[in-house]
């Protein structure tokens, strides 16, 4: 039974409620880092990692610190500090353990703090009522992982398209951001097709 729920959460965060194309979260890195495919892969992996970790830690902090002390209203400030320090920690650990990976991810890691999809997934984990559920922690970690995968999927698709757009004949005034937004709109339209999908 639990597996079924987890699978539903995973599919719905990746495709049906894709964080970028359906919920419109995390647009800054989505537009900023989608110019080249290799940097998009690096950014995507870093986001998956940070989102999964952030879901885990913010859930624990909300449940075992904020609720017992009745300071739920400090949620925003607590979460942003958790995410910022988590990003810093991840950066330091990766630098120590694998300098090669650090070289690849390095410049993207600090950017993730201001990625609103990360804070978004932390807040949504609380708002979707996982806190009272038995397997809430597992659910929210899976939702964080799925959100990261969905973000990476959208980012990779966009990077692939943009590499082609570079050599395409785009009208002068549409070059750069405008054509990127229209492409994103078309992609979002394609992802709307998933919204009718029913799992189980």
């Amino acid at each position, binding site marked *: 039974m639990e597996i079924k729920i987890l699978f539903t959460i995973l599919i719905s965060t990746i495709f049906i409620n894709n964080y970028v194309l359906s919920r419109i979260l995390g647009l800054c890195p989505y537009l900023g880092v989608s110019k080249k495919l290799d940097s998009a892969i690096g950014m995507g992996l870093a986001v998956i990692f940070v989102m999964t970790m952030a879901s885990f830690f913010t859930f624990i902090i909300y449940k075992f610190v904020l609720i017992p002390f009745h300071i739920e209203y*400090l949620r925003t400030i607590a979460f942003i*500090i958790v995410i*910022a320090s988590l990003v810093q920690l991840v950066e330091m650990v990766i630098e120590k353990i694998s300098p090669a990976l650090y070289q690849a991810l390095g410049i993207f890691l600090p950017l993730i703090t201001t990625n609103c999809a990360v804070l*978004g997934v932390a807040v949504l984990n609380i708002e979707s009522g996982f806190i009272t559920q038995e397997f809430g922690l597992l659910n929210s970690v899976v939702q964080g992982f799925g959100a990261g995968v969905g973000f990476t999927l959208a980012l990779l698709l966009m990077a692939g398209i943009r590499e082609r757009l570079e050599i395409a004949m785009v009208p002068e005034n549409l070059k750069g951001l405008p054509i990127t*937004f229209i492409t994103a*709109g078309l992609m979002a*339209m394609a992802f709307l097709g998933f919204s009718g999908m029913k799992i189980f």
Partner: protein
Amino acid sequence: MDYFKEFIKGVWQKNPILVLGIGMCPTLAVTTSASNAIWMTIATTFVLLGSNILVSAIRSIVPTHVRIPIFITIIASFVIIVELTLKAFQPDVYKALGIFIPLIVVNCIILGRAEEFASKNSTIRSILDALGMGLGFGLTLFTLAVIREILGANKLFGYTLINGMKPAIIMILAPGAFFTLGLLLWAMNVIKARKSWFKRTE
């Protein structure tokens, strides 16, 4: 005159969304109706104003190494004020804007202005800068919202415009947001190109 320039630059010359290209997420996500756009503007401008005033006031005593965490904490405190106030006095607005109220914290405009402007300029200038940026942000949001609400819901401020007409629902959904902003940026580029063309021919 100098002060006025500080204020007005946020509206067109350095418009946060159309020129600097920051703060996109709330721009696209909450512009499903004109009233949402106005409330989002009020909330964001309040946070921007508060953080700009405080950051510029303490700019000489903040150590440079830890300035970013300090700025984020200041911004987050103002966001909590907005969150609690809206929850208490405007519960409908709070529901409509949803998670985009707490997400004002990660709106790049606010941290960007704190880092780029308020930490280097006097309080009066920072206030004007915040108000100008807020106005530029608000006007862009309002334009987007009006276009999307008319086309996508056949309404304006919740009032039906043409009886019996079926709206294009796609404009209210995510794709419509991307299309509208894409076309708005395109229109902006066209106007800029025209201006420079006229300058060259003169």
